């Protein structure tokens, strides 16, 4: 059992504080959905977890399986078992997904050819043409193709906890089903813990969350089971946003 524990996490960019006290624990095999309005800081949370330069953690802690992640480089966090699917997968000319997998696994004891065979097999499962593994990663690929390729790397690199930032964006219905079923299987068979960031509950019909969290203004303001996602789907985030709270109070006064 591995856990990603986030405690009272505050983080900022040069110009503003974005995370204002996040508390969350994601354990092996669990699926947590983080939902919230645009600009609430969901993607920032994913970047801060992975250690992207440009953010400063001012308070709080992040541990993975008891190890403090703060102060570690991004790749060191990845080596400890953390994985991030970026909302917008990055294009890199001349660097193929196969090569990334190869270099990432070089220091591991895994049999490299076995890893690449596995990648090739997974490509077939995920409906990815083999040549997508060999050309510049994400180059000249549709949004959906990119997300499939991200999923392939997730499956091949075998992290213990994965943060999926809008895995659903760009995917069509069929793609969404293929990708989320594969992630679901990883949670069941390999005990992958997942934090999935999304705007819509469409993804969550395929990838069943154990917990749903509402993220507003840089922190979790409510948590519940999957029924919370349905509620958000029908009512939106209005109930949770501060301006709405004000109007509720005013309504009470009148």
């Amino acid at each position, binding site marked *: 059992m591995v856990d990603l524990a986030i405690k009272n996490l505050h983080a900022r960019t040069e110009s503003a504080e974005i995370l204002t006290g996040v508390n969350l624990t994601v354990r092996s095999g669990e699926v947590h959905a983080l939902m919230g309005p645009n600009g609430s800081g969901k993607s920032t949370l994913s970047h801060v977890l*992975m250690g*992207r*330069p*440009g953010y400063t953690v001012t308070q709080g802690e992040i541990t993975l399986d008891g190890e403090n992640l703060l102060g570690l*480089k*991004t*790749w060191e966090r*990845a*080596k400890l078992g953390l*994985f*991030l699917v*970026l909302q917008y*997968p*990055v294009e*890199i*000319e*001349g*660097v193929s997904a196969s*090569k*990334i*997998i190869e*270099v*990432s*696994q*070089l220091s591991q004891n895994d049999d490299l050819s076995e890893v690449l065979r596995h990648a090739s097999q997974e490509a077939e499962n995920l409906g990815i043409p083999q040549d997508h593994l060999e050309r*510049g990663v994400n180059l000249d690929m549709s949004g959906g193709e990119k997300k499939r390729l991200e999923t392939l*790397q997730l499956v091949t*690199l075998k992290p213990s906890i994965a943060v999926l930032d809008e895995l659903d964006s760009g995917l069509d219905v069929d793609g969404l089903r293929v990708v989320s079923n594969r992630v679901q299987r990883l949670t069941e068979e390999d005990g992958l813990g997942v934090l999935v960031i999304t705007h819509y509950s469409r993804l969550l019909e395929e990838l069943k969350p154990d917990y749903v969290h509402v993220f507003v203004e840089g922190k979790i303001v409510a948590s519940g089971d999957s029924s919370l996602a349905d509620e958000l789907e029908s009512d939106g985030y209005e109930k949770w946003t501060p301006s709405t709270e004000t109007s509720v109070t005013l309504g009470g006064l009148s």
Partner: protein
Amino acid sequence: MYTPELVQELEGHGWLMDLRRQAAVNATEFSYPSHEDEEWRYSPIEDLELDLFTPALTKPQSGTEMDHGKDGNFHNISTLDGFLLSNDEVSTCDVHSASGQKDPIEFEPPIDMLGSMNLAFSPDPVFIRVPRGSNVGKPLVIHHQWNQEGAACFPLVHVEVEENAEVEIVEIFHNAEVSSLVIPETKIIVGNGSNVNYQQVQNLNQDVWQLGTLDVSVGQQATFQGAIAAIGGAYARLKTSCSLIGRGASGKISAIYHGDSNQVLDFRTHQRHIARDTYSELLFKGVLDDQSNSIYTGLIHVANEASGTNAFQTNRTLKLCDQAWAESVPNLEIENNDVKCSHASTVSPVDEIQRFYLESRGVPTFEAEKLIVHGFLQEVVSSLPVEAINTWIADLFNHKLNARMAHSG
């Protein structure tokens, strides 16, 4: 130092000696390069003290073994300090030194000081003639090497490819751990209907100044595919000119370069469209580390008569260090309306988000940068024109990149 009298010490028949003397006189009459001249702009040329170097005028006894190409896959030609040391027998073309030739060879008179010096002091101008209809087969590999401390060397290679012939040529510049000045000139004439693939590898040590010229002319329905791989030199300059003189001629030129420490790598290019329906494509990509500099200035010139021209020019430089500096100036000069031309140039640091992405896959920072650099150069490396030595060139660049890793610890 570089006087017409000095020419007497070289060997050659009367016609060549006359030519050399005249060139030495001309050299003194041309103006000395200045960074105020457009073609020397941004360069450190004024730091050059010619008199610190002595022309290499006596033939050395032997050279050290070359590190590449001494197997049966190539026709090898070796020069040492500018002297022709050895050349394999090639039945499909003619290779010889002009200094042993009785009958005069026609030389175009040089148009500047360096060209004149090269002609004056080149001890063995190497002539290669590929006869009409001939296919040379294995690549001709010319190893230029110099071993003398403080020497000024003047390799001169003149290639004439007659009609409907095919040849692959490689020039490799390298040297022992000496400080020297190299002024090489290579001229290639591609005859009508011929195909020439050319690769230059500049792997000098970092105490050498190179002021080189590559001058190509391409005839009707002929193709030239050339590439430059530049790694070494303190200040290493190559001025490349590709003239498309026959209708339907095509010239592609690419380069990869990697500078580090205080190196200055300087490229001047000129794509000259003189005839109709001609095509040129230029792609120069380089990487700069430490405090190294690169200079690229390129001109596409389309003459009034050259309708139907397609001409493209791209220079991209990736900076691995904030202190590295690159100048990139593409230019167009078009005298005809029926043309398709483009030019592009970028100088940028390693993309932070690309590095983050790779790291998020468990790729250590340095490996991530290596992958990005490797991928960046791959576009050129994958299409280098002389396939037989591509792996070797890729290894040279990887070696330099890996050395960086060892260096940065």
